[in-house]
C-alpha cells in the first residue's frame, strides 16, 4: 500500500492511498480522481464526436472501473494514473460507439451478473443465470430501500468490495465476525421482504 512509483506523481499517490483506505478517505479519493481528470470529457467529445452526456457516462464508468482496480490492488502502477485512466476512457468511448452503431444500447431491466457467475461451472452457471433473469429487479430495489439505513449501508459496503474486517474498522463493529453475522442477517431480511410480495 502506498508504494512510491516513478510513473505517478505525489498527487496521484495521495489519491491511490485514499482509495485504498477503508475509512472515509476512500470517498475523498473517488471524488478527487473524478475531478482531476474531468477534462477528459471534453477530449472525448472532440475526439470521438460524441455528446457531452455520453462522454460524461463513459468517463464516470472509467473512473468507477479504475477505483475498483485500485481498491482491490489489481492496478499495477506500470503507467501514470492519467495514462491508465485515459486508456480505460478511450475503450469505454469505443464501446459506446460500437453499441450505438449496432443499436444494442436498449435498456434492459436486468442485472449484470457476469463477474459473480464467472466462478461457477457452465452447468451451474446456466441454472443460476436463468433464475437471476426471472428476478423482479424493481421489487428488489424497493425492498432494499425498505431494509433500513444500517442494513443497507452494510450491504452496500460489502457489494463495493470491502472485506468484513475493513467494514468492522470503518463502521466500528467489534469484529469481522460480527459484521459477517449482521450482514447475512440483513440479506436474509431482504429475502423475506422480497418473498412477501
Amino acid at each position, binding site marked *: 500500500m502506498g508504494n512510491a512509483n516513478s510513473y505517478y506523481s505525489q498527487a496521484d499517490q495521495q489519491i491511490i492511498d485514499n482509495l485504498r483506505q477503508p475509512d472515509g478517505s476512500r470517498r475523498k479519493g473517488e471524488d478527487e480522481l473524478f475531478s482531476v481528470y474531468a477534462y477528459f470529457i471534453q477530449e472525448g467529445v472532440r475526439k470521438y464526436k460524441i455528446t457531452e452526456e455520453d462522454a460524461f457516462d463513459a468517463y464516470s464508468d472509467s473512473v468507477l472501473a479504475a477505483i475498483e482496480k485500485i481498491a482491490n490492488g489489481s492496478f499495477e502502477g506500470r503507467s501514470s494514473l492519467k495514462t491508465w485512466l485515459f486508456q480505460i476512457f478511450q475503450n469505454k468511448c469505443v464501446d459506446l460507439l460500437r453499441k450505438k452503431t449496432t443499436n444494442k444500447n436498449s435498456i434492459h431491466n436486468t*442485472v449484470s451478473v457476469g463477474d459473480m457467475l464467472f*466462478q461457477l461451472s457452465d452447468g451451474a452457471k446456466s441454472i443460476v443465470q436463468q433464475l437471476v433473469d426471472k*428476478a423482479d429487479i424493481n421489487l428488489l430495489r424497493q425492498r432494499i430501500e425498505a431494509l433500513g439505513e444500517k442494513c443497507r449501508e452494510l450491504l452496500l459496503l460489502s457489494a463495493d468490495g470491502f472485506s468484513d474486517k475493513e467494514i468492522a474498522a470503518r463502521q466500528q463493529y467489534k469484529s469481522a465476525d460480527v459484521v459477517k453475522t449482521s450482514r447475512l442477517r440483513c440479506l436474509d431480511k431482504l429475502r423475506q421482504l422480497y418473498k412477501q410480495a
Partner: protein
Amino acid sequence: MTDPEYIDSFFKKELPAEATRQFEQRIESDPAFAEDAAFYVSAMQTIKEQSTEQKKQRFREIYNESKYHHNNVIRMPQTRWWPKLAVAAVIAFLLVGSYWYLKPVSPSQLATTYLKEELTQLQVEMDNREDSMKTGSRLYNQKEYSASLKVFENLAQSDSSNTEAKEFAGIVSLQMEQYDKALKYFEALENYPGLQINPGKFYKAVTLMKRNHPGDNALAKQLLTEVDRQGLAGKEKAKEWLKKF
C-alpha cells in the same frame, strides 16, 4: 435462505476446491438451493448497481460545478437597481442572438470554425515514451505544419496499417489547405477495413466544405448524410450541419 453463510463463502471465494465442486453439484441437483444462490447474486448485484448510481450522481454534481461543464459561466451579481435596464439588455441579447443564430452560415464557414475550434490541437499521450506520433503531434500543436506532415507521411508510408498516421496526415494537409492531399488520406482512412471508429468519411466532408469548389458542397452533404445514417464517427456534428445546409 437455506445456508447463507455457505453461499456467501462461495461467492467470496473462501471455499476450498472440493467444497466448490460440491457447491456447484448442489446447484444442479437442489432447485431450492439454486434459488437461494440466485437470490444472493441478484441482491448483491442490485445493491452494487445502486452504489454505482449513487457515485455517478455525486460525480454529476462535481462535474456540473466544474469549469469543464459547458454551461458554467461566471455569474454577475444581481443588479436590483437596474431591473428595466436588465430586461432591455436581455431583449437586445435575444434579438442579436437570434439574428446570429438564424443568419445563414456557409458550409465553408462551418468547416473553418470546426478547424479552428476542434482541430488546432492533437492529443499527445502523457507517458514517458517518445515516438514519432508524439513528435508529429507536438509539431502540429506548435503550428509547424510542414515538419509535422513529413513525420506523419513517413509513418503512413512505412506502415500502411497505421490509420492514426493517415488521419493526422490528412488533418495537417487540411490545415495547410492542401485539400487534394487531405482527401487522399481521408479516403484511405475511410476505406481501411475493420476500424471500430472511422472518421474518414466525416473528415472528407469537412475537407470538401472547406475547399468549396463547384459540386463540393453537394458531395459533402451526401457524405454527412451517410455519416448520420450509418452512425459513423462525427454523427452528432453531421446532424447539426445538415440542418444548416
